[in-house]
């Protein structure tokens, strides 16, 4: 298809040009109307307006459309709302998602889960939408910014009369006297208002704030960087999110790292009644959660089960909410705590019930017991240990967790008057468990001969509160902030400044002035009116309005 894109001024324009790149004369359909001009991108042809597009061009054209961008934004917006109907799977730590939704929300919950909306933001369609928005950001920007840059970089001063008359701010009047002098004086006034003024005899172009045109593109670059940074988290080693349980005083390995972390002391402070208003007196309102944490680096025997690792202290920090521990990209956040004291160790004695004699005490640690204990003439061999004792479905003893909530120890007692292979004895350090699981019945005959018991509370060692820390590594974070900062700079440039231009020419004593801004027409008209007023031409700013805002 042949299209004549040569303007009457002699300039050869690209296909799709709305306003001649040189003189501004409206071309094609735009020349038929009387309405104010479509000044977007200064009427230049965008890359997407090629004749005979190939399939690559078609994809490019699709993503370069602002209309498509708006559709993508709106669909993402609507999709996001779906994810807020019920809690997302990622927000609850306990509970099985396969049943959670149906149990809590009935049939709608079941449907919600079946549709995959319980993981809306990780779903393929949501990620696809984000990727499409990212693509649209890149292509929309490239499609426009280069032609726009070209157009703004080589503007001619003397524009076609139609171009001036069809601006949204227009002023015409007969000017008596020397036209060149008038143009110079007006130029002076506009310079004072911060315009860069270019003159070409009786024609003038005054321009201000062109940089604000780059605002949207800078913003888009920032957003793209932001999205890329988020994607970069899938690079191995860039992102880690795990939780550690820290009983007081124990260095615990942080998985997949060379670090150990210890909770020296965890404290919770509550507000006193004096600090609370009347309505809240007597309630527990937390004031501070604090973990005194020490970070160690393992220097030798790391992960070696047979030997204690060698640890070197590298960092120490009192972790509170809003103030995590940070060391070389590793962060530890206060996440949760458990104040109920846990049994740490007991110092029981072995009592021979028949003679009344007692042997011991021996120290039995809950988390780290010895393999055998020598108590008087007897030997206690530890055969098995349960942290939270329970009888499993197969009738065999099992443990429900690794927390010492209901510890039990399975010993073989050997010694004088006992069979050579020993007698088995199940020991519950906590009195309450002893009764609950009927220790004496489990142990049968041997229960009449021996008893392992803790004499007094002095022989019970309790651990302090347990703290839960969230361990994070997120190498992409700095890039996220850089993206956000660039985006913000772009927004500020684009929204708090405007690109204003004033063109004028005097033909046979008749002044024609047109002005354009990309935002804030109120300010644009004010600038023109006040510059004219200085030359004793009094106009009401509003009267300069040539319409063009109508729906």
């Amino acid at each position, binding site marked *: 298809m042949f299209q004549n894109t040569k303007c009457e001024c002699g300039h050869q324009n690209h296909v799709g040009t709305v306003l001649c790149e040189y003189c501004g004369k409206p071309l094609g359909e735009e020349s038929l109307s009387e309405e104010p001009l479509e000044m977007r991108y200064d009427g230049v042809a965008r890359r997407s307006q090629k004749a005979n597009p190939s399939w690559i061009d078609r994809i490019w054209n699709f993503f370069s459309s602002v209309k498509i961008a708006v559709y993508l934004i709106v669909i993402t*917006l609507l999709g996001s709302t779906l994810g807020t109907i019920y809690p997302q799977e990622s927000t609850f730590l306990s509970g099985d998602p396969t049943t959670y939704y149906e149990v809590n929300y009935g049939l709608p919950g079941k449907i919600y889960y079946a549709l995959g909306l319980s993981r809306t933001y990780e779903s393929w369609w949501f990620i696809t939408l984000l990727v499409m928005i990212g693509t649209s950001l890149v292509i929309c920007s490239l499609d426009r910014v280069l032609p726009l840059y070209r157009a703004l970089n080589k503007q001619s001063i003397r524009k076609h009369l139609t171009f001036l008359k069809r601006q949204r701010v227009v002023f015409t009047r007969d000017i008596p006297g020397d036209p060149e002098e008038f143009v110079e004086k007006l130029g002076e006034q506009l310079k004072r208002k911060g315009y860069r003024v270019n003159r070409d005899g009786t024609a003038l172009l005054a321009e201000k704030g062109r940089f604000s045109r780059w605002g949207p593109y800078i913003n888009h670059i920032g957003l793209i960087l932001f999205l890329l940074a988020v994607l970069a988290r899938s690079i191995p080693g860039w992102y880690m999110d795990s939780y550690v349980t820290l009983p007081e005083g124990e260095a615990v390995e942080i998985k997949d790292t060379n670090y150990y972390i210890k909770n020296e002391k965890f404290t919770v402070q509550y507000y006193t009644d004096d600090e609370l208003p009347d309505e809240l007196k007597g309630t527990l309102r937390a*004031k501070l959660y604090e973990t005194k944490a020490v970070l160690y680096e393992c220097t030798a025997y790391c992960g070696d089960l047979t030997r204690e690792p060698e640890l070197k202290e590298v960092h120490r920090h009192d972790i509170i909410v*809003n103030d995590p521990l940070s060391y070389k990209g590793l962060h530890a956040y206060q996440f949760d705590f458990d104040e109920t004291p846990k049994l740490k160790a007991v110092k029981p004695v072995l009592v021979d019930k028949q003679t009344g004699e007692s042997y011991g005490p021996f120290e039995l640690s809950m988390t780290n017991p010895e393999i055998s204990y020598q108590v008087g003439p007897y030997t206690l061999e530890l055969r098995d240990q349960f942290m939270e004792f329970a009888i499993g479905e197969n009738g065999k003893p099992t443990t429900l967790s690794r927390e010492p909530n209901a510890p039990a120890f399975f010993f073989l007692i050997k010694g004088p008057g006992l069979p050579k292979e020993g007698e088995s004895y199940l020991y519950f350090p906590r009195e309450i468990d002893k009764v609950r699981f009927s220790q004496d019945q489990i142990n049968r005959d041997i229960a009449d001969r021996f008893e392992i018991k803790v004499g007094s509370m002095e022989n019970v060692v309790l651990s302090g509160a347990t703290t839960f820390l969230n361990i994070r590594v997120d190498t992409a974070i700095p890039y996220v902030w850089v993206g956000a900062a660039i985006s913000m700079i772009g927004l500020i440039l684009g929204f708090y400044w405007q690109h204003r231009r004033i063109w004028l020419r005097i033909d046979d004593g008749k002044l024609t002035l047109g002005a354009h801004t990309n935002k804030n027409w109120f300010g644009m008209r004010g600038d023109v009116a006040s510059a004219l007023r200085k030359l004793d031409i009094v106009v009401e700013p509003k009267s300069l309005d040539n319409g063009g805002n109508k729906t």
Partner: protein
Amino acid sequence: MSFLEFSSDAFIAAFFLYCFGFLFYMIAIGGKKWSNRDPEQHVKRWGRVAYIVSTLGLVAHLAFFFTRWIGAGHIPTSNMYEFMTFLGMSIMIAFTVIYSIYRSPLLGMFALPLTIIIVAYASVFPQEVQPLIPALNSIWLKIHVTTAALGEAFFAVGFAAGLMYLLRVVDFKGKTKEARRAQRWVEFTLYVIIVVISFIITVFVFRGMGYEAEFKQMQVNIDSRGQETTTEENVQYTMPPIFKPYNSETISMDSFIGMKQPLLETPYWMDGVNAGRKLNTVVWSIIAGSLLYGLLRLVFRKPLGAVIHPAMEGIDPEDLDEISYRAIAIGFPIFTLGALIFAMIWANIAWSRFWGWDPKEVWALITWLYYSAYLHLRLSRGWQGHRSAWLAVIGFVIVMFTLIGVNLIIAGLHSYAGV
């Protein structure tokens, strides 16, 4: 007198100054056609009086804010009462900024009632100073909440200007299908505003009467190990129970114009925190709002839009369109910074991740996406004026849902701002 006492006095002073400011704006606009005066002079004079009075209101409001800050020892933006009063104040600040650019006194006629409604709504919540919980004890409480609220305040001014535009340009005498549709939606918007006002009035009327009812609600919970437990909870009502909580017994109930028993029970599937009480409140607000709306219709004998429309004569609709757009354009970067970027920085410090798809976060993102769609649409032909005004109105509904609706209906991590 302590700082906190002075602070609550200043708050009351601010509230009344806003009310008087609004009254003077109404005189400025409504009195144009009174006899023996030059309409232009009249609008100028009374517009000035109204502006001065409402600015004094803002000064009193600022005094409230800073004295409460000193008295409490932390910035008063930590619960719903404090946040909503701050939002009201931000709207006044945003209005003052926009006014200083456009000098359009009539904008005050819409920005002020919006502030008044929001400040009155704030007073529905408990007002005592609460000491900070650890999660809020951060410098970002000051930075994130204030900038986010300021951005939203500009959206609020955009909404006010957008609504003014609609009231100005919609043809209330038109009989075409399009005109009728526009009339209906404007009327519906006004009806919703009246329902919100009625909610506030209803709360204060029953509070004044000292109305109380109490219920014992049985709730069945199934824990992670599959064990079923029943918990009993006492639920207090301060409005007569049209809907009692699901599966509950009445413990005590004041009688209200012959109503001695709850009329209905909340359906089982509304099982959020205090769902029964919330449903009851919503139903009361709609009933009271509809009554008030009906009363106004009876008094004026025409749709409310048509009542306000003549007062808007002489205002240039294109100026309104531009003010609405400009307010949103000014608010957008501030909102981005406060509600997204600062929020992400704080979340990264407090919750160990900058983004976690918490409902409040998602809705802030939705608000942001919505306004970015708006800003892109403004670039296209045919999306200025009428359509743009509607977008500004809907946008503010989304803002309010993010601020209040999420806390009322969805909750999540921002629960300390709860109700």
